[in-house]
């Protein structure tokens, strides 16, 4: 009896959630909600609008960059390591164009990200150069151009932070979180429900087979870098909008944070597996964890240890559970 119940499969919807390919993502989603609820119950002032907004501000910028990056990883090209420099340049452009209004400045920043993403996409996708080396070189080039453009100086918005930087649709729900949600929904639909998304995932699963099958592999690789560039640029613009300043320090940790969020969420480093919603969950997991550590005023070194350990446990547990189920 007991043996039977142990080996019995989970009921329909749950079996999907705990299928080998989904188990890490599901565990992270549950852990994020559990951590948040536990903190609400045990930490004073945790569930206040300002603290929730603080979590969402941090998650939105990293999350948007991680969503763009995920398209590169899922397409089978590991990582793009030019997110930080793109975000820094975009922050400077956003502030420089702030006289055009929020939308004009945002579009200007996005255009910058799209152009840099397109260049990297062409080099990796069409010219078949190594993805990591290309993006490291691009990072250096973009940082150099941004420094030459700004003279290394911090640029200040004349009117201070705008509605995009500190406005909220509801108490605790900043506009930046709404933008993050829209980006996640659009990207999830693109990857899961469109031919392009299907080709992107198949290219990540088996590049040679995808090419032999006549899929538009080169085009989707170029597109993935355009999305990564646009995501990084939007993150930079949102950071600049928060502080009313743009400089080369913006996005200094963005590459590492976006990679960590994506991997913790359950996107496979080898490509082909993972969903945008997983990236969002991974981002929220790290944002909630960071916030809990800060609110409890843990020493910095303890924060580093706990965050590192959490990432390690999440990735290891995902790998082990996935293997066990298989």
């Amino acid at each position, binding site marked *: 009896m007991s043996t039977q119940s142990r080996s019995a499969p989970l009921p329909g919807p749950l079996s999907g959630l705990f299928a080998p390919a989904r188990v890490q993502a599901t565990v992270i989603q549950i852990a994020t909600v559990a951590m948040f609820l536990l903190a609400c119950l045990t930490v004073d*002032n945790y569930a206040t609008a300002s603290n929730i907004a603080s979590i969402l501000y941090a998650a939105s910028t990293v999350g948007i960059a991680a969503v763009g990056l995920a398209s590169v990883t899922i397409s089978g090209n590991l990582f793009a390591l030019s997110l930080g420099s793109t975000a820094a340049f975009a922050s400077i452009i956003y502030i420089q164009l702030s006289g055009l209004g929020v939308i004009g400045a945002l579009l200007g920043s996005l255009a910058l990200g799209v152009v840099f993403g397109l260049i990297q996409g062409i080099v990796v996708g069409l010219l078949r150069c190594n993805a990591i080396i290309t993006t490291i070189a691009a990072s250096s080039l973009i940082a150099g151009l941004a420094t030459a453009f700004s*003279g*290394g100086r*911090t640029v200040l918005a004349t009117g201070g932070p705008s509605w995009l930087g500190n406005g909220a649709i509801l108490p605790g729900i900043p506009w930046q979180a709404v933008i993050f949600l829209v980006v996640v929904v659009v990207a999830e639909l693109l990857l899961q429900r469109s031919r392009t998304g299907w080709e992107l995932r198949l290219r990540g699963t088996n590049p040679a087979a995808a090419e032999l099958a006549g899929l538009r592999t080169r085009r989707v690789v170029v597109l993935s870098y355009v999305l990564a560039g646009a995501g990084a640029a939007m993150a930079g613009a949102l950071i600049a909008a928060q*502080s009313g300043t743009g400089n080369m320090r913006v996005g200094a940790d963005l590459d590492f944070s976006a990679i960590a969020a994506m991997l913790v969420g359950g996107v496979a480093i080898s490509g082909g597996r993972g969903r945008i919603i997983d990236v969002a969950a991974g981002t929220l997991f790290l944002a909630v964890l960071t916030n809990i550590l*800060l609110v409890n005023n843990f020493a910095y070194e303890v924060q580093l240890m706990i965050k590192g350990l959490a990432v390690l446990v999440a990735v290891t547990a995902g790998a082990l559970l996935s293997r066990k189920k298989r």
Partner: protein
Amino acid sequence: MKQTLRTALGTLLTGSLLALAGAASAEGAQEGKKVIFLGADDICEYCAVYNGQIRKLAAAAGIDLEVVTNKFDAAQQATQIDQAIAKKPDAILLWTIDGTALFPSMRKVKRAGIPLLLTDVQPDQKMDDLWVQYSGGNYEEQGAKAAQLMVKAFDDKGMEKKGGVILITGIIGQAQTISMTKGFTETLAKLAPDLTILGSQPGNWDTGTSTQAAAGLFTKYGDQIKGVYAAEDIMMQGVLIAAERAGMDPTKMAMIGGGCEPVGIQNIKSGKQYGTVLQSPVDEATYAVQSLTDYFNGKEMAKSHYVPHPMVTAANVDQVCKPWPKD
């Protein structure tokens, strides 16, 4: 007669020129000297201004200055020091990225017989036999001045010197972070013993990181926080954003930054930030070139030559905080 006069004038002119040349060589021994400056990338605004100024000032002093920078990477700077030693310059000027990790590299410079002068970051002074002179900021004094400003802010705003304050520091482990924190905490304990430091988090010299760090502390301590010391104005900008999001009025708190940076000047003028402590990249670059000039001219040199750190509030911000040069 004409010939005699011409000869006499010629002799006088030659003598005068020789005398002038002699005087110039006594004061101008730095001219044509090859110096390698190992510093930080233009990626930080302070560094960009410093690098621009030192190039200009060294050129004006006739020093042949080669500028080599890196992105705050101590390992890369160690390699750069090895390369600099191989070039056998007349002196090395070092903005050490890590005051402790680069001691072995400094020893190599000493063994190579190349004079080493330091700028901006002062490592542990127990090792000061490795360098000729340090010129730049006195970070402990800066922290102490920030504490004095904090107390002054409490007085000026009519607040009782009781309650909590928080600290947003630079990168943990950096020599300047350690010294600033020491100066601030020790001085505050002396001047206002009833003010308690509730918490401290690193802002890593970055606005976004400081916003998150301050937001966490505002959530935990809320109205207990009466004042904030952020070691740099650009980090105070992050604190102000977090305070406003938390529904706190920064004009009713003691907000103290550091550096007299453009964003700090703007915040002091708007009343959101009470004050700052000057540390000017122009001063630091000027002192560094003076340090090199003094060395080549054989002047007696103290081990430390600190730039001034006056306290700044809305009352004197325009007099003390000069706009940073654009090129």
